[in-house]
């Protein structure tokens, strides 16, 4: 086998091995991330599985598959979200967000724009810094900051409604 081909095969094997590890260790985490972004558990699982299948077709692009798959999941969730508008809830909210029932918070999240929702979830669930969020969402850091600020303001308004 030519040297270049051997190297390619080795890269693919390494990628696949890492991807399998990410799948086994982080599948649940990614599904929960997708669930927060879509609000639908079945859709979340489907999106994550699609992202892994798509990532399996790729190799040697990155050394660490997790950020790659996570970005694919977030972008697929955003794409899904653009096509499936979620109804806003108009039920009254308790004043303290910590006291919000889960479904009420889910409705509040659904009322955000998809970018605001993604920024909020990546910041407060994934605990990512602005730079990483900007990279995932394909926007500037200032846009991330404004999305988070506006998202929080919207959540606050919902909470105070």
């Amino acid at each position: 086998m030519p040297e270049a081909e051997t190297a390619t095969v080795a890269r693919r094997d390494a990628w696949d091995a890492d991807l399998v590890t990410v799948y086994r260790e982080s599948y649940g985490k990614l599904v929960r991330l997708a669930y927060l972004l879509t609000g639908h558990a079945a859709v979340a699982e489907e999106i994550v599985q699609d992202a892994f299948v798509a990532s399996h077709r790729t190799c040697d692009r990155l050394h660490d598959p997790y950020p790659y798959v996570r970005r694919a999941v977030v972008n697929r969730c955003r794409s899904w979200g653009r096509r499936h508008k979620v109804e806003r809830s108009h039920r009254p909210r308790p004043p303290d967000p910590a006291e919000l029932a889960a479904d009420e918070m889910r409705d509040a999240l659904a009322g955000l724009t998809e970018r605001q929702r993604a920024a909020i979830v990546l910041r407060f669930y994934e605990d990512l810094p602005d730079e990483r969020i900007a990279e995932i969402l394909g926007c500037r850091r200032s846009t991330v900051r404004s999305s988070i600020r506006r998202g929080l303001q919207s959540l606050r308004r919902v909470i105070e409604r």
Partner: protein
Amino acid sequence: MHLLDDTDHDALEDGVRTILRRLAAEVHEVPPAWEDLIRRDDGLVVPLRPADPATRDRVRRPRWHHRPLTSVAAAALVAAAVGGALIADRGDDGGAGGGPRQQAAEMITAISPGDPAFDAAAAAAVWATGADDPVAAATAYLAAVGVPTAPADPAPATVTLRADSEQTAMVEWSLPRAAGPTGGTVHLRRPPADDAGAGWVVVGAAAPDLALSDVAYDGERLSFSVDGAPEVGELAVSLWVDGRPVPLASPDVPASGVALDLGPDDVAVLRLVHVVDGGVRSLTEVALAMPDADPARPSADVAATVAAGGSATVDAVTGAAGADAGADAGVGGTTPGDGSLPGDLDEVDDLTDPSLPLPTVPGDPGVSLPPVPTSLPPVPLP
């Protein structure tokens, strides 16, 4: 606007964190075995994707389903660059003030087919065929763009099915006799099962050496980047909105992008073609769908005819910054957007085949379309 003080803000952030974790804990996922999952990629098992009534309802037969390979050279010849941007003027509505302008605070983005996050099952259609085979559909699409695919062509492209699932397909193409990177992939989506007679729709195309990235619309402007810098030939960018070619007309190259007035159900399609010696070398196409757009409706018109050496039949020509891309078109200035060429460009001869019938728009026999370009003659570089 409610202004938060620091205490409020911290409490709100803590509350959001708490609730997000509580929400996330609701999910009890059941991952399939890895081997079963990746077998989906080979089409050997029934896909796990459940039926989605909402999606199926939206996927209707493309309105141009039976439209023949018509239409026109609507290419804008540009020397595109990384970060290149254009100014466009909607010719059909008299410009930016012609329709209800969407003051969208939200940026609408499109994922390019070359991106791993691209989802062909959800992407907006850019071109429709009556073909019930993905390879035939991709071949027809490539031929319409100007890629030689017929066996009688001197150096026809090879078109191969690369991946096929229940809903989508990826077809790979290349020009075996051409030097350098050629070809790419065409991404397709299967028509709904209850729409007998509908063919595969093309939802995008990707090239190995070029990409349209950061495609986004902020409510007023469409922006994008061209990634890649071919050493020879030119890059041509075409833009359609809702199936109509958009004149690209400005000698200025604002970094802010294309001034564009998109309606809530419009689909904008960007096509980037790399041309060498008058022949299409590679192709990238991506659709940006507004929130209410019908994802099944193809938006790009068929033929993007391009030519090297600063000559082209175009609706308009833009002079985007081009030096960084290595392109050599040297095209600058503007055209009126009426199909005529600026004074410093020469029209390309013999782009049409007079033996072909003049196509008409179905249902509107009074409207005729220009002849179909069937080949791209070599045009010498200046």
